[in-house]
Structures are given as structure tokens and as C-alpha cells.
């Protein structure tokens, strides 16, 4: 009964989404306020329907209703409750339901917060979001219903993939989807602007907080995914340039470019058609990511079980949504006239370069991801594009971005002044150069070219960003008042740029000074790595809620003192017969000690993989800084003030008409 209710709720949601797509468009054609304002109610009704459907599926998982095929595939009677709840998005069908739930959540948020917008604009935005939802509901109902029954019902479920039974992964997909799907709002704003032809500073100001919020969730989602892969896959790596990681990274790069070009469009009224194109691009790349993951067109460790009908539907959907948007763009964008001229040495000029490098970077990732497919389709060869390509390309593209990021807060709009810029950046530059030399020696006792470069870039980004806040605080007579006077948007930008610097320090540190070792150790034997002594004490059996584990005990000593006891495990999940290594990590801000258990030998010894990972936490710390930077920037009070002012203006105008 419950699964059928869920299925029915999805059908209902489809109906409401269709109305939400069509009625406001009619209202716009006929200039009928009643039809326009229907969009908001539809958005709220749609959310109720899909939330009910999602609750139904969760209920089936929690109550272990194995008569539902999707539940039988991904649930198990011994699965702990928390993973029964997260198992809802453990595979294709359920994660798609989560996707539409989040899309509907964003739509709801737009309908609530956009009450202050001109009615036709907000109605058109909701209409576009309704069209996107319609496509996804059809996708679910035609190819991927999670509510299909299984006859006869099996006695036991097939279990959630053990690799997904981890707290990091429990929150990674929702965060990632919040980001992916959030770009649909910027997309909808772009389409509405193309339709109405109203693309001005106010449009950019409405779009900015939505874009920043989506971007911040995507940043967090990618950061969590990287942390999870490091912890769970047992290879000690934090980024693999896997096609599915690339699929999340491309929209991030486009979204980052969009955030910056929106600033130009808002402040200077420039780059209008470029900004609209980026908004379309960021969401298109999100759709592309979904397609790549779910169509089976690429081989990846993440790929969902593929099905040709799903791939075909996604492709057709993408062709309609993105093709429609780009056709509209080709037709309407030439009419978006930009006034004013752009000086290259000005904030907008530098942001244009920032956009250029970010978009080229996204294109380079796309090329690397798709090249194997192109060569395969043309029948030339089978190959995969690996980290060497991406690492080289990225180093080249990222270096100018780091140079630019330091200039960001210093060079003013309209026209920059070389002498003023040099005067203000002298101190950060000197600090960065000194630390480039000193920092690797101070932290690691030696240096490499990469470590020095990383320290230079990282410190430059951090201190150049910090000097802006410092200067603003110094301008006030008292520092507390000074801190309060710094707008949240400036705090946000500063934090995000500092985060980028921290990330650079982490990457260059772990790549330059990280070390690893494969050893075979008998009981009581020791090995040394990075100045730490690892003693293999013993291995024994350990029972978990739904697995049995071989657990090793490794004592870590440093300078004769015991600093950690690690328990790496090899887990056997009998429900799927899967063996999983569960690494054990002694985490620290400055270094991680990481042990994973390999094979056992007949004489009682074990093979172990030991890693010394200096500063790897900085990589994720950088992501967290960017997340909070986005949070502060999106909540800047001028968005709220501006909205209130616009509403008053609209009310006055309406009053005048009446």
C-alpha cells in the first residue's frame, strides 16, 4: 500500500509540475496576474507531493519491505537504522528521487524568497524550474521507478553496497545534489532574463545569492567526497580524476566562474550575455554529470548499473533542456546590449581573465573525460586519460588564477592603478616570498620545487586576502567596530580566497612530502616511515553489526613515546560476499598516519600499507573555508535590503497604477 501511495505521489507531482511549467507562461503571454501568481502555489504543492513520495520510500527501507524491488536490492535486515535511511539514495532510482526532492526544495525556496521580486520574473523562474522537474519526474516514472514491486518478495535483501556504509558517504550525495540542483535556479533566472529581455544589475543581484548558495553546497559535497574516498577506498589518495569526480568538478569550475562574472554584471552591467551563458553552462554540466554517471557511457568506479533506456532518456532530456536554452540564447543574447567599456586593468578586467582560465580548466577536464569515448567511438583505440594529463594541465591553468586571486580585493572597479596596487600588495608579496623559502624547511626540514611553489601561491592568496580585511579594520578607530564594519560579502570573499590558499598549502605539502610503504610484518615486527615507528602487535577477529572483521593492532611511536594505537580492519560483509579494507587513521592538522590491512600469510604475518600524509587535512580545511565563505557571502544583508527597497518601489509603482 505504502509503495503504491509513493508511486501515486510522484504521478501527482508530475501533474503539478506540468501546471507549474505551463500556467505562468500563459499568464505572461496574457499579462494575467492570477495565472502568474499560480506558480508559487504550484511550487509548494509539488514539494508536498514529492516529499510524501520520498517519505514513502524511506518508510519502505526502515520497515525492510523487500517486496519493493529497489528496497530488496539495497536493504538488508541487519543493516543499521542510519544506513537504512541513507540507503534510500544508495543506488540509481532512490538517488534520483532525492534529486527531484532537492530540486523541488529549491523551487519551494524560490517561491518563498522571491515574493519580493517582480511577479512576472519570479513566475517565469518557477515555470522554468517546473519544466526541469517535469523532465525528471518523467524519467523516474518511465525508466526508474523505485516503487516497483517484486513478486515473489525475497526473504532477505541484497544489502546496501558496503562501500557506501560510511557516515561520510551518508551526507556526501545530498550535499552534492544540493549543489548540482541549485544551479538550476541560476539557470532558470537566465532563461527568464532571456525571455523577458530584462537583464540588468537587479537581475544579477537576485541571481547572486542563489548561485553562491548552490556553489557552497557543491564545494562541500566535493570536499566530503574527497575525504570519503581517502578514508574508505584504502588507497590514501584524495582525488583520482575519475570521470565521476570530474563530473562534479566541471560544474564547480563553471559555477565559480559564474559567481565572479555575476559580480561584474551586477556592479558594472558588463559581460551580460557571457554571464547568462555561464548560468546555462553550470547547470548543463550538472546534467551532463548525471548523464555520464547514469548512462554507462563511461567506465568508472562510481558508475551506477547502467541501462540503455535510461541513457537514451537522459540524452534526449539534455538535448531538449540545454538545446532549448542555447537556442534561446542564440536568438535573444545578441539583443542584450552592454553599455560601458571594459578596461583590462580593472577589477572587471581581471575577473574576465579569471573566467577565462576557469572555463578553459572546465573544458580541459571535459576533454580529458570525453577523449577516451571519442577515440573509442571512432574506433581508433581504447585508452584512459590519467592523472599525469590533468596534473600538468591544471598546474598551468591554476598558476595565473593564483596570481589573479591576490589582486582581487585590491584593484578597484573601472580602472586600476598600478602604483596603488603595488603599494598595497607589497607586504603580502614579501611575506609570500619569505614563506616560500622558509615554510617547507620549517615544517618538513627540506624543500622541493612543488613545495616552494605551493607555499608561494598559498601564502600569496592568504595574505593578499587578509590584507583587505586588515586595511578595512585599520580604517576604523577601534578594531571591534572595524571588524563589524566589514560587510559579510567581503568576509565571504576573503574566507573563500584564504580557503584556496590553504588548499594549495595542503596539496603541495602532501604531494611533496607524503610517503608510503608496503610492508609484510610478523607479529611484534616494526617499520619506520616519516620519523614514526609502526609496530604490528597482533591481528584478531572482531564482529560488527553486519560484518565480521580481521582487525590488526598497530602501535605508533614517535621519539620513543606511544602516540597512537591504530586498528585497521578487513571487513567481510557476508550479505554480498564483499571484502572491504577499513583503514585506520591517526588524524592531525599537520599530518595523518594511515594504515590499511592487506593480506594475511600462513605464518601469521600480514601485509600492511602505511602512509605518512603531511598536511592532507589542509585540503579539506580549504574546502570548509570556501563553504563558510559562500555562506557569509550569500547572507550579506545588502541582498535583503535591496529586496526590501525593490518591493517598496514595486508597491509604490503598483499604487500609482491603481
Amino acid at each position, binding site marked *: 500500500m505504502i509503495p503504491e501511495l509513493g508511486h501515486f505521489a510522484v504521478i501527482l507531482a508530475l501533474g503539478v509540475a506540468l501546471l507549474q511549467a505551463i500556467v505562468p507562461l500563459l499568464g505572461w503571454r496574457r499579462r494575467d496576474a492570477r495565472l502568474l501568481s499560480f506558480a508559487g502555489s504550484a511550487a509548494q504543492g509539488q514539494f508536498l507531493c514529492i516529499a510524501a513520495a520520498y517519505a514513502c520510500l524511506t518508510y519502505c527501507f526502515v520497515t525492510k519491505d523487500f517486496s519493493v524491488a529497489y528496497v530488496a536490492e539495497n536493504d538488508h535486515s541487519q543493516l543499521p537504522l542510519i544506513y537504512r535511511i541513507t540507503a534510500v539514495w544508495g543506488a540509481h532510482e532512490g538517488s534520483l528521487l532525492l534529486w527531484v526532492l532537492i530540486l523541488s526544495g529549491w523551487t519551494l525556496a524560490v517561491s518563498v524568497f522571491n515574493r519580493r521580486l517582480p511577479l512576472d520574473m519570479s513566475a517565469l523562474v518557477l515555470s522554468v524550474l517546473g519544466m526541469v522537474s517535469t523532465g525528471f519526474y518523467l524519467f523516474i516514472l518511465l525508466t526508474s521507478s523505485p516503487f516497483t514491486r517484486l513478486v515473489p518478495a525475497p526473504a532477505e535483501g*541484497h544489502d546496501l553496497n558496503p562501500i557506501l556504509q560510511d557516515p561520510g558517504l551518508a551526507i556526501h550525495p545530498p550535499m552534492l545534489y544540493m549543489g548540482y540542483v541549485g544551479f538550476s535556479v541560476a539557470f532558470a533566472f537566465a532563461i527568464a532574463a532571456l525571455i523577458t529581455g530584462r537583464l540588468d544589475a537587479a537581475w544579477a543581484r537576485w541571481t547572486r545569492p542563489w548561485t553562491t548558495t548552490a556553489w557552497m553546497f557543491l564545494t562541500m559535497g566535493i570536499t566530503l567526497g574527497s575525504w570519503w574516498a581517502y578514508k574508505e577506498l584504502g588507497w590514501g589518495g584524495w582525488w583520482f580524476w575519475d570521470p565521476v569526480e570530474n563530473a562534479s568538478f566541471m560544474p564547480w569550475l563553471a559555477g565559480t566562474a559564474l559567481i565572479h562574472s555575476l559580480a561584474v554584471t551586477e556592479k558594472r552591467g558588463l559581460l551580460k*550575455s557571457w554571464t547568462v*551563458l555561464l548560468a*546555462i*553552462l553550470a547547470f*548543463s554540466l550538472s546534467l*551532463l554529470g548525471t*548523464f555520464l554517471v547514469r*548512462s*554507462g*557511457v*563511461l*567506465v568508472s568506479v562510481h558508475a551506477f548499473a547502467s541501462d*540503455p533506456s535510461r*541513457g*537514451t532518456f537522459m*540524452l534526449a532530456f*539534455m*538535448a531538449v533542456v*540545454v*538545446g532549448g536554452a*542555447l*537556442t534561446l*540564447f*542564440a536568438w535573444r*543574447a*545578441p539583443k542584450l546590449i552592454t553599455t560601458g567599456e571594459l578596461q583590462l586593468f580593472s577589477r572587471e578586467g581581471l575577473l574576465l581573465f579569471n573566467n577565462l582560465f576557469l572555463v578553459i580548466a572546465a573544458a580541459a577536464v571535459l576533454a580529458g573525460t*570525453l577523449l577516451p*569515448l*571519442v577515440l*573509442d*567511438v571512432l574506433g581508433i583505440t*581504447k585508452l584512459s586519460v590519467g592523472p599525469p594529463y590533468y596534473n600538468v594541465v591544471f598546474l598551468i591553468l591554476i598558476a595565473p588564477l593564483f596570481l589573479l586571486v591576490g589582486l582581487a580585493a585590491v584593484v578597484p572597479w573601472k580602472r586600476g592603478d598600478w602604483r596603488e596596487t603595488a603599494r598595497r600588495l607589497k607586504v603580502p608579496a614579501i611575506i609570500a616570498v619569505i614563506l616560500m623559502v622558509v615554510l617547507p624547511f620549517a615544517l618538513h626540514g627540506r624543500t622541493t620545487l612543488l613545495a616552494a611553489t605551493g607555499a608561494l601561491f598559498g601564502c600569496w592568496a592568504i595574505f593578499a586576502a587578509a590584507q583587505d580585511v586588515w586595511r578595512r579594520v585599520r580604517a576604523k578607530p577601534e578594531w571591534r567596530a572595524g571588524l563589524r564594519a566589514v560587510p559579510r560579502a567581503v568576509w565571504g570573499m576573503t574566507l573563500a580566497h584564504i580557503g584556496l590558499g590553504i588548499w594549495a598549502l595542503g596539496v603541495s605539502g602532501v604531494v611533496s612530502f607524503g610517503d608510503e610503504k608496503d610492508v609484510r610484518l610478523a607479529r611484534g615486527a616494526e617499520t619506520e616511515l616519516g620519523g614514526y615507528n609502526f609496530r604490528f602487535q597482533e591481528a584478531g577477529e572482531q564482529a560488527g553489526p553486519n560484518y565480521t572483521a580481521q582487525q590488526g593492532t598497530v602501535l605508533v611511536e614517535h621519539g620513543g613515546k606511544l602516540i597512537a594505537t591504530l586498528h585497521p580492519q578487513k571487513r567481510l560483509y557476508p550479505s*554480498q*560476499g*564483499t571484502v572491504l579494507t577499513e583503514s585506520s587513521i591517526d588524524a592531525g592538522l599537520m599530518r595523518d598516519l594511515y594504515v590499511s590491512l592487506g593480506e594475511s600469510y600462513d605464518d601469521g604475518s600480514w601485509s600492511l600499507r602505511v602512509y605518512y600524509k603531511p598536511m592532507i587535512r589542509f585540503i579539506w580545511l580549504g574546502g570548509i573555508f570556501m563553504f563558510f565563505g559562500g555562506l557569509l557571502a550569500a547572507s550579506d544583508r545588502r541582498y535583503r535590503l535591496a529586496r526590501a527597497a525593490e518591493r517598496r518601489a514595486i508597491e509604490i509603482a503598483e499604487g500609482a497604477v491603481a
Partner: protein
Amino acid sequence: MRYTIPLVVLIALIGLFFFGMQHDPRLLPSPLIGKAAPAFDLPTLDGTPQRMSQADLQGAPVLVNFFASWCAGCQEEHPYLMQLTRNSQVKLVGIDYKDAEADLRPWLNHKGNPYGQILTDLEGRAGIDWGVYGVPETFVLDAKGTIIYKQVGPMTPEVWEHDIQPLLKATS
């Protein structure tokens, strides 16, 4: 004019994906095709004879199926393998890959045994020599013991009828 560039790029990409979807990225050519079956010496499940090697596969065409009781794809192809050995003369040898006998026997008892002979490769050593990277995988050997075909993933009626049967006819 330049405003249509994104649309052109999109059309090219859609075309690429459309053709890309006709390809199965998992179809990897095996370097073993056309070569003699790799050497192995494995214990049999029923103990008669106690051990078998690649030399024992010669004399008639044979399908060598790497499988395991824990693998989902093997469950999927199992009914078809049953049907295949019932309805045709083909010889099917199973190599139980990284499995435990205690799990395998109930699996066979419960589902039936399509195999003429089962060899156990409990540690997966033979699997490495044969280049197996996921079960099920099925190798087709001609009477001289040369590998003439490799199927990655479950055996299906389409693969058998369109690919393997014609090959076997051509070699005999």
C-alpha cells in the same frame, strides 16, 4: 553568429554520446585471444580426477566459465547455463574463483550444477593468469586449446547464438 557556437558544440556532444552509447565500454579485447590457454593446475571439486591442467581441456571445444557463489552476475547467467548444457553438446568447465567450498556446495545444490567439471581456484591465482578481472567471465577454447573468444559478464542467448556458435562452427 558567435552566439550560436555553444549550440553547435552541444549538438556535437549529443552526437558523440549517441554513438558512444552504442558502444559498451566494458568490451575490452583480451590479449589472450588466438593464444593457447594459460597453464594451470587446479584441484577439482568432486575429486575425480584430483587435479586438472590446461592439457585436459584439449580434444574438443570447451567453455571455461569463471564464476563464484558470491557473484550476482553468476546468479543471473546460471539459469541460462543450465539450459545451455541441457540442450547442446557443448562442454562447460567451471572455475570457482575466490570462493569457499562451504559456500559453493549449497549454492550448487540449491540451484543445480550445469558444469561438466568444476575446478576450484580459491585464491584466484589461475584467474590472474587468465586475466580475469571480474566474474563471471567465459572463455571459449577450440579443440587445440586455443582461446577463440572471451565474454565479460553474464552469458546470454544473444552472445551464444550470434558470437560463439558461429565461431565454434567455423573451427570444427
